[in-house]
């Protein structure tokens, strides 16, 4: 079985498409997470592949279906947090052969194919549809939702896995080179000018603060809220390994990476996998958990004209993304019980929620909004999942949280100031991402 990337026709990238034809006809039911770890410990039992299998099995069990009922598998084959297996690094054949390998020995260690998973999960006897949604869970979700809606699969697993290895990421390879190519030197990317990963977001945040008279300090309540929510997320990295609240003082004292972006504005790379079980609404009715219906998915494919997106470009794109999200779901911003937009740089979460017009906000309003009650107990929850800032670099906490909240099983993290009925999640970037609208009822 050869797995392809989803075709362009799967994505809802423009405004004016009307309500999604499969609105309410696709549901998320089961959730499975692996434990988190800061890095791979080198053992075969704790590879990214092992985490993947564990997450998938847990999602199947959670949904209460038998593995032979699964007929679809959608994953992101790229699993790096930024840690790459350098060419020439020895390959641990004992780990490779602990599993049923594919032709690529790094499959299941530093990349992942559907083929590897199916070879190592013999209980999945009826998978007839596989597809890749590359980049993050947000991407895999829209691919799986469209595939189920289109009838290509009716009980489909969706998986995103991450591997993290020893060493600081992005420091080797071209970053350590004496000479680089002319195209690389010009940018965008790291370039010979040396921007860290958060540089673009830091720039946009700086322009935002200048334009609207805001400051980095105003992010502190958002950061504390995110860590608090993350510590209430038992699946998350900080809850499992470092249950420390982040105070405003900690945040304001953090070292700069690219001022105005500090250490805590960046998420922490971790090893973790999550899987969801999607099904047609019809099949989902008989499963063990309450179905959470997908009202729409929408994608952003914005591009900057030159090296780095300007605030004008960002706002044009996030505004358009908001309109796409609502149009296809047949809802307005007023219908959102809460939002779980991406935060894996903290300093761009406001672009996402201003684009949505969450709670009526306009461009430039979000940092003032952060000074009000944004907790899970209040009427205006911001990122109840805690996002990447609250639980580590997975880009999927916000999706798990939407599903759990609408199923009524978010535990200590449950929103109590609003009735959890409709929520939105997605990302990653304000200029490019994939977004999903979730609902407790199909219409």
């Amino acid at each position, binding site marked *: 079985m050869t797995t392809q990337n989803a075709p362009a026709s799967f994505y809802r990238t423009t405004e004016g498409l009307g309500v999604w034809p499969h609105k309410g006809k696709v549901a998320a039911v089961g959730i499975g997470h692996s434990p988190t770890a800061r890095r791979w410990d080198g053992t075969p039992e704790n590879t990214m592949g092992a985490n993947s299998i564990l997450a998938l099995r847990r999602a199947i069990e959670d949904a209460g279906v038998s593995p032979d009922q699964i007929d679809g598998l959608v994953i992101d084959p790229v699993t790096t947090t930024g840690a790459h297996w350098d060419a020439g690094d020895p390959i641990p054949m004992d780990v490779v052969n602990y599993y049923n390998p594919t032709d690529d020995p790094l499959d299941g260690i530093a990349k992942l194919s559907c083929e590897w998973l199916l070879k190592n999960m013999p209980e999945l006897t009826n998978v007839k549809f596989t597809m890749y949604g590359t980049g993050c869970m947000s991407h895999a979700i829209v691919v799986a939702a469209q595939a189920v809606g289109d009838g290509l699969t009716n009980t489909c697993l969706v998986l995103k896995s991450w591997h993290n290895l020893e060493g600081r990421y992005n420091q080797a390879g071209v970053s350590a080179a*004496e000479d*680089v190519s002319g*195209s690389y030197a*010009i940018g965008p990317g790291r370039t010979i000018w040396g*921007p860290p990963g958060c540089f673009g977001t830091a720039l946009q945040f700086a322009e935002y603060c200048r334009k609207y008279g805001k400051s980095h300090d105003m992010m502190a309540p958002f950061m504390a809220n995110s860590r608090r929510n993350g510590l209430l997320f038992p699946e998350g990295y900080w809850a499992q390994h470092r249950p420390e609240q982040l105070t405003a003082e900690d945040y304001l004292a953090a070292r*700069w990476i*690219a*001022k105005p972006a500090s250490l805590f504005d960046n998420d922490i790379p971790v090893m973790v996998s999550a899987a969801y079980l999607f099904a047609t609404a019809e099949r989902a009715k008989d499963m063990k958990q309450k179905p959470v219906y997908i009202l729409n998915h929408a994608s952003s494919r914005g591009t900057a004209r030159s*090296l780095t997106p300007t605030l004008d470009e960002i706002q044009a794109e996030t505004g358009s993304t908001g309109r796409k999200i609502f149009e296809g779901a047949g809802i307005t911003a007023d219908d959102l019980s809460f939002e779980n937009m991406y935060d894996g740089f903290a300093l761009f979460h406001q672009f996402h929620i201003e684009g949505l017009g969450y709670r009526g906000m306009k461009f430039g309003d979000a940092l003032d909004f952060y000074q009000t009650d944004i907790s899970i107990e209040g009427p205006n929850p911001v990122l109840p999942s805690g996002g990447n800032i609250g639980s580590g670099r997975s880009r999927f906490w916000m999706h798990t949280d939407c599903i759990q909240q609408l199923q009524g099983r978010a535990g200590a993290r449950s929103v109590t100031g609003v009735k959890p009925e409709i929520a939105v999640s997605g990302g990653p970037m304000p200029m490019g991402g994939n977004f999903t609208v979730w609902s407790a009822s199909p219409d």
Partner: protein
Amino acid sequence: MVKQGVIPDDLTKPFWEAANEERLVIQNCTACNRLQHPPVATCRQCGSGDNLEWKGMSGRAKIYNYTVVYDTPIRMLQDNQPFNLAVVMLDEDPGIQMYSHLPGTPVDEVPVGASVEVIFEATANGQKVPEWRVAG
């Protein structure tokens, strides 16, 4: 602050050759009369590669925005931290951006909006690269 050496590739060779002659050139589509940077093989507006030229620029720009870098992944720059990393926009077309370390501008004292002029600095392998200095 010496940057990594640059080895021109096919796409960017005219940009780097001009830099060695202390001229700034930017890719331009003559059909669309539109500049584009970074360079690509085809015009990002009309999609054609037939009408791309390298157009000489005045070497004047404005500082659009900046950050101060404290933690760069680039090994060769790490001893120079913290340093300014600005984006300038060309006077010919503010949609065209270039990076700059703003040599001569103290760290975190960047005059956003100020006029800058291009200069050319040698990188580690001698290839010259456009940089920008606040105009006197």
